[in-house]
Structures are given as structure tokens and as C-alpha cells.
């Protein structure tokens, strides 16, 4: 008996040991030889692609070069940025204004590069703010935020800022249905079904200048609108939105919004909506929202409050919206380059449904409906379906396209990206991600013409990928070469905030238009100082305007006297440089806001209230030249009511003893 026991123990130990060696190889082994060469961009050489990456809860947009993964810039958009003075300088403060007042932060999820004929044109990139619903437009000549438009009747602007193939519209769909702004919002939360509403905004974009304006809003049933993409080619004129919580739950959504086997993809015929709008079927309703525009000529932002929005009710106005059942709380809603296939990704599904635009059209023509949902027809699932990708992975989230007939889908739960063929719906390749990928991006991967050299996975969990930095870690992104049949991991790089969607584009479309500096002759800032001779200090009551210049390596004036406690001092600093990459910074001791970072030819204003008697140093914060450390000055603050005269100069305010000695 004892012997048998011993051999049993030995056997199981051996079995356990054998199992241990069966354990899959770890992540380090997933990198093949030759990866470094593919991701290597030699010092001084340019990357092939720009990668614009949403900043998530940082509120900003970061720009990387691919394939190197080098961080090129972080563009301040929805959060203030003390290092550039964005949101702090008088010129940029209005950009962050909302109907709730100034907000220093937002949650930036998705990006869309402007398109012409379904291809990226490199002019602008649009960004959404998820928390306080807004859409921003960034000018890709300057990489500056040019415009921010707030959205009324919305909450959780998530299915945004997806765009149509000629940038006719940028959309904004509300994730949190809420009572409309002009209704009485003081209602029980559990009256969701009666009092709440889902709103989708169509923002018109000026063809030449990019200016945004809400063309109309669609009043939709209360659900959670999640993601969207515009039709293209044959499906141009349509928009597709995924939605979950068709259970219309208002609490514990984790459970209560996961009850139905199928939620919906909502197909929107926006050309039809335009017809209704033209026919005067839109209702103008009161709504308070702001529109902030940065004027490049005056280098100053203006915030304008709007009081009205045009609304179309999709229950009353037939043939605008249709629901298509889609399994298990769909997230990604992606349209292939031909515009025929619409891929819905049910977060909790074990398959990927692919819908056919032609079949949807045929079903609508035949009224092949299984009923209606809150007054909107629901198309029969099988009638709209092209087919299902079976066993692709667990937790599909988003799909991008390679333009060669294949799709690549990200899987959060099984932590992988999976390449499959759109026609035969067969899986071709799968590669692990590190860890739990959210969005993914192929350059032009949501346009008519993908440039499918790489796919980038933006992950939600980082853990052991980099040297540990305490509990808080940056997110990780992985770059895969997809030029061959097999996807090959070639680079892993940390990102800023929490990246969600991203866009990538060939550098050629952008780099040659990049502005090097602003022409001082074209500076129409009302507080510009064009030349040191024009610098001055002007007192208007307790407001003091300092018209100051900065050039290597001095400010004019750099000695200012006659400021009194309580004075509101406006430093209008003009950078007189007309040379590439010579910004000057401007810091004031004790200023409770931020610094200014002034590009060549630009004027920026820092407001500072003199709070106590004494000498306040000012200096240039951006190492501009060999004598940067000498680029400094003083402001003398005297008591309120003092008789110290207003004096300002550079290089003249010498000690009395020195002047006497010279005589």
C-alpha cells in the first residue's frame, strides 16, 4: 500500500511538472527577430506616419511618430495646460468656457481626421469631450485648437466626433440620456423611460474654414448611444450608431443593461433628415450652449453663447432612423472601406455580426420589421445580417480595415487583435496584446483608402510592461507590422492619459503645411507691440497694461516701477523673433495662474494682481539663447496710494552712484 501511495505521489508530481512546461510562453517571446529594425527610425530622420492619439482623462491629444513611437507633441484641447499657458492666458481662456462657466478638464475619447471623398485630407482633426459634451477642431497647420462647440441636450458625448466622407457633418451622440435642457429636469431618476431622451447632434462643418455649427439634433428614444461611423461610398448619406441599455435601466447598468440578448445599431438616413429640415419640419427650441473660436489673425479666442437649436423628432418624422438588432451591448460600430459592411462588436458576445448595407436597404423597402422600439421600426436581424464571424475571440470592441478585404478587431477580454476576412468571415491571424486592448488604429483604417502598413493597439492595462512607477502606470500601446499575412509585434510604447480612439496618416499630408512661426506683420492682436520702440506701460485706473517685447535675450521694458498693491497688471508679451523654434517664456513670481509660452510673432497676455509690496522678478522660462539666464527683469510694487511714478525702461535704469562716477 505504501509503495503504491509513493508511486502515485511521484506520478502526480511528474504530471504537474510536465504541465508546468506546457505553460504558454510569456510575452517577451512574442517578439520576433527583425522587429527592432522595422520600428527603428534613425536619429534625425522623420517618421513615416503621424499618429494622433486621444488623451482620455488627460483631456488633451497627443501626437506620436510611427513606426518609432516617439512622442512629438501634446496638443492642449479640453484641459488647461500651465506649460503653454493654454487656458491661463487672456487670449486662450475663452476656449475652455462652457454654459457651466470655465472648466479646466475633460475626458477626450475619439478623434477624426477631416476627409475629402472618403480620404484623409490633412486639414483638421476633430476631438470629442465626453464629460461636458463638446467637440473641438484642431488646425493641423499650427497644431492648435481652433474651435470648441458645446452640445446642448446631451450628456456623455461618446459617439463623437465621427465624420462623413466629405466632412459635411461631425456627429455627437449622447451616452447618458437625460431630460432635454429646456424641460424641467427635477424629476425622479427612475422616471427614465418617461422623461429622458437620447440626442444625436449633426454639426455642420464649413468646407473652407472648418467652422462648426449645429445643423440639427435628432430626438431619439432614451438609450446609451455608444459609438458610430458614417457610411461611405454606396452608404454615404447614412450614419450608424451602436447603442446599449435598450433595457432603459437607470441603476446598476452592469446587470440591468445586460439583460436583453440583443441591443441595437441605429441606422440614420441623414439625407432624409436634411430633407425634413429643408421642408421646415425642424423645431427651434431654446437651449443654452457656447461656441468658442480662436481667431488666428487676432490670436485671441472669443466665446459666444447660443440660445437656440433646431430639433427633428425621429418618432414623428418617419424614415430617418431604423434599429437593427445587434448581440450583447454593442460597442464598436465600424464601416468597411466599400461602405457595404457594417461591423457591430457586442462587448459580451462570442461572435461578430456583419451587416450588409444592401440588405438593410432591401429590408427597409420590404418593411421587413419585427416591430418597433419607442416608435422606431426594428429591422429583422437575419434580414440585415451578411454573416457572423464565429469564435473570433472574447469581448470584441473595435474594428479597423486594411483595404485588402480584411478587418482587424480588438478583443478586450481575450486580450488580442484578430485579423479576419470580410467576405468569408474566416479568422486569418491572431496576436496577443499587453494587456486588454481597447481601441486599435490602422492609418486611414476607417476611411475609403486605408494605408495598412501598421496596426496600433491601445491597451487598458499595463502592469509589467515597463519599469514600475508606483501604483500609477502609463497606458501601453503596441505597434504591429501588418504588411504581411501574419501580424508582427514590433514596438511597445507608453502613452499619455488613457488613449481611446486614434487616427494615423502619412506624414506627407501634414508635414509640409506645418507653420514654422507667425509673421509679426500679420499679428492683429489688439495688444501687440511691434518693435521695442513701441513698448509702453499704460495705467487705466487700477488696471495696468504692459506692452512688452521679447527677443534674444531681453524684455523691453525689463524694469517697471509705479505698480501698486491691488493693481491688475496685464503683461501683453510679444515675441519679436521671426525665426524657427525660438519661443520665449514668461514667468512672474507669485503669479497664481501659469506661465506664458509665446511663439515667434505671437502675443500672449498674463493677468497678475499685485498682492504685496516688494520687488517681483520676471524672467524668460524657455532656454532661448546663450544669454537666456540674463533674460530677466524686475517689477516694483509699492503700497496702494503710493506716489511712485510709473516708470519703465530697459538698459537705462542705472544706479545714481554709477552715473555720478561717469560724470
Amino acid at each position: 500500500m505504501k509503495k503504491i501511495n509513493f508511486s502515485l505521489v511521484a506520478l502526480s508530481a511528474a504530471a504537474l511538472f510536465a504541465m508546468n512546461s506546457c505553460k504558454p510562453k510569456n510575452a517577451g517571446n512574442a517578439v520576433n527577430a527583425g522587429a527592432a529594425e522595422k520600428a527603428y527610425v534613425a536619429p534625425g530622420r522623420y517618421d513615416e506616419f503621424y499618429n494622433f492619439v486621444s488623451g482620455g482623462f488627460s483631456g488633451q491629444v497627443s501626437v506620436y511618430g510611427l513606426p518609432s513611437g516617439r512622442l512629438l507633441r501634446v496638443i492642449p484641447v479640453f484641459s488647461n495646460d500651465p506649460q503653454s499657458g493654454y487656458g491661463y492666458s487672456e487670449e486662450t481662456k475663452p476656449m475652455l468656457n462652457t454654459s457651466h462657466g470655465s472648466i479646466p478638464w475633460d475626458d477626450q475619447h475619439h478623434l477624426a481626421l477631416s476627409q475629402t471623398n472618403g480620404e484623409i485630407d490633412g486639414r483638421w482633426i476633430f476631438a470629442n469631450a465626453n464629460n461636458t459634451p463638446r467637440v473641438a477642431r484642431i488646425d493641423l497647420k499650427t497644431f492648435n485648437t481652433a474651435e470648441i462647440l458645446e452640445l446642448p441636450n446631451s450628456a456623455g458625448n461618446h459617439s463623437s466626433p465621427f465624420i462623413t466622407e466629405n466632412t459635411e457633418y461631425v456627429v455627437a451622440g449622447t451616452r447618458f440620456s437625460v431630460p432635454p435642457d429646456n424641460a424641467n429636469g427635477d424629476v425622479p431618476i427612475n422616471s427614465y423611460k418617461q422623461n429622458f431622451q437620447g440626442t444625436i447632434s449633426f454639426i455642420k462643418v464649413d468646407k473652407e474654414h472648418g467652422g462648426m455649427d449645429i445643423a440639427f439634433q435628432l430626438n431619439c428614444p432614451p438609450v446609451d448611444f455608444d459609438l458610430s461611423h458614417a457610411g461611405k461610398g454606396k452608404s454615404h448619406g447614412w450614419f450608424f450608431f451602436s447603442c446599449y441599455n435598450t433595457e432603459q435601466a437607470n441603476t446598476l447598468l452592469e446587470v440591468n443593461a445586460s439583460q436583453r440578448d440583443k441591443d441595437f445599431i441605429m441606422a440614420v438616413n441623414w439625407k432624409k433628415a436634411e430633407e425634413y429640415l429643408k421642408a421646415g419640419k425642424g423645431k427651434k427650441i431654446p437651449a443654452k450652449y457656447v461656441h468658442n473660436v480662436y481667431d488666428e489673425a487676432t490670436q485671441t479666442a472669443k466665446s459666444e453663447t447660443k440660445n437656440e437649436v433646431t430639433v427633428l423628432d425621429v418618432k414623428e418624422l418617419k424614415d430617418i432612423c431604423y434599429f437593427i438588432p445587434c448581440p450583447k451591448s454593442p460597442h464598436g460600430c465600424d464601416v468597411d472601406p466599400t461602405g457595404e459592411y457594417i461591423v457591430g462588436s457586442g462587448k459580451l458576445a462570442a461572435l461578430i455580426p456583419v451587416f450588409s448595407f444592401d440588405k438593410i436597404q432591401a429590408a427597409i423597402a420590404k418593411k421587413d420589421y419585427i416591430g418597433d422600439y419607442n416608435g422606431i421600426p426594428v429591422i429583422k436581424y437575419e434580414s440585415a445580417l451578411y454573416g457572423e464571424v464565429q469564435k473570433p475571440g472574447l469581448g470584441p470592441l473595435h474594428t479597423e480595415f486594411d483595404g485588402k478585404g480584411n478587418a482587424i478587431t480588438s478583443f478586450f477580454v481575450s486580450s488580442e487583435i484578430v485579423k479576419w476576412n470580410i467576405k468569408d468571415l474566416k479568422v486569418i491571424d491572431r496576436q496577443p496584446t499587453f494587456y486588454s486592448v481597447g481601441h486599435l488604429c490602422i492609418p486611414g483604417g476607417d476611411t475609403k483608402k486605408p494605408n495598412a502598413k501598421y496596426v496600433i493597439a491601445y491597451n487598458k492595462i499595463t502592469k509589467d510592461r515597463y519599469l514600475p512607477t508606483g501604483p500609477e502606470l502609463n497606458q501601453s500601446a503596441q505597434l504591429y507590422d501588418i504588411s504581411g499575412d501574419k501580424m508582427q509585434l514590433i514596438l511597445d510604447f507608453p502613452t499619455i492619459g488613457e488613449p481611446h480612439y486614434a487616427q494615423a496618416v502619412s506624414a506627407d499630408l501634414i508635414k509640409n503645411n506645418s507653420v514654422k512661426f507667425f509673421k509679426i506683420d500679420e499679428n492683429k492682436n489688439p495688444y501687440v507691440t511691434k518693435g521695442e520702440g513701441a513698448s509702453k506701460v499704460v495705467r487705466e485706473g487700477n488696471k495696468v497694461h504692459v506692452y512688452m517685447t521679447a527677443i534674444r535675450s531681453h524684455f523691453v521694458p525689463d524694469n517697471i516701477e509705479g505698480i501698486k498693491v491691488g493693481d491688475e497688471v496685464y503683461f501683453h508679451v510679444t515675441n519679436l523673433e521671426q525665426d524657427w523654434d525660438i519661443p520665449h517664456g514668461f514667468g512672474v513670481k507669485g503669479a497664481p495662474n501659469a506661465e506664458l509660452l509665446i511663439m515667434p510673432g505671437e502675443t500672449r497676455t498674463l493677468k497678475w494682481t499685485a498682492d504685496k509690496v516688494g520687488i517681483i522678478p520676471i524672467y524668460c522660462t524657455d532656454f532661448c539663447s546663450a544669454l537666456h539666464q540674463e533674460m530677466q527683469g524686475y517689477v516694483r510694487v509699492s503700497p496702494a496710494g503710493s506716489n511712485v511714478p510709473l516708470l519703465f525702461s530697459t538698459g537705462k535704469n542705472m544706479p545714481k552712484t554709477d552715473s555720478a562716477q561717469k560724470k
Partner: protein
Amino acid sequence: MKNKLKPINRLLILICSLGLIAVLFTPIWRIELDAPQYPEGLSLSIHANGLKGNVDIVNGLNHYIGMQTLHNENFIEFTILPYIIGFFIALLILIAIVNKRKFLNIGFILFVLFGIIAMVDFWKWEYDYGHNLSSDAPIKVPGMAYQPPLIGFKQLLNFGAYSIPDIGGWIFIGVGTLLMLCVFTEFKKAKQKL
């Protein structure tokens, strides 16, 4: 009869006058500067009527070493140079019309003299700018002068300066060479006749 010019030479002289017209509208001389922080390079180009190129940027940098700033108004040359070139254009046309060897020889000598005087003047300015430095200069290197080279390359602190003729300058040299050729062939022809 023996003083008459060969028809081909008269044509060449007319071509030379056309060349000088081109000189009025093209850069004559160029100074290229590069430094570690200016990988894209800076350039100053000298035209008959003034300085062009990155004058403002160079002026911004000059103050560190106490060099005077460059302003077209300070150069009388840029006012008179177009007239001098105009004079040579007229003179060459006149030589072609008058059709006398003696005229050609005088014209050539004047042209060469002008070339020499112009280069001496250029050198003098370079010397003045390179040596006549402000005593308040933030950067003072004992024994260092910043005179750019008349022609060729010279390292001045972190800047490499490269001075060469530009299109107009090359045309000018071409005109001189062609005129010399005319003078020479006319000289040979005259010798044969003797």
C-alpha cells in the same frame, strides 16, 4: 578698317550687355552660414540694390558679439551699383555700335577696374563689420575677429561662413571672360594685319 571689330565679337559684346541686364535682377554674391542650431542654414544674398535673405535673423544674432546690424540704408553702394551696371550696359552697346577696337579695350579695362574696386570695397566692409565691435558685447573672445571670408569658407565661433558668387556674380565673371576673349581675338587679328 583695321580698327573694326569682328562681327562675332560685336555679337558677343551685345550678349554681354544683355548679361549685365540680368545681373541687375539676380543675386550677385551669397554668404551662407550654418551652425549646430541652424541645421537648415541661414543665407545673406547681395543684390545690386540691397541685401536679401535672413538679414533680420543675422542681425538678431550679431548683437551677442557686438557686431553692427546690417541695414541697406547704410550702404551707399546699393544706391550707386545699379547705375554703374547701367553705365556698363550702355557702354557695351555703344562699343558694339561704334565698332572700334580701341573702345573695346578701354571698356574692358574699365570693367576689370570696376571688378577689382568692387571686391576691395566688399573686403573693406567685411573687415569693418568683423573688427569694429561694440565694447558692450556680451560675448568677447580675446583676439577674435568675425570678418567673413572674401571667397571660400571660414569658421567664426559656432558659425561656418561660406562666401561665393551667386548667379549674378557668375554672369559678371562670364561677361569679363567673354570681353577678354574679344580683346584677345581682336588683338590677334590686329597683329596678323600688321
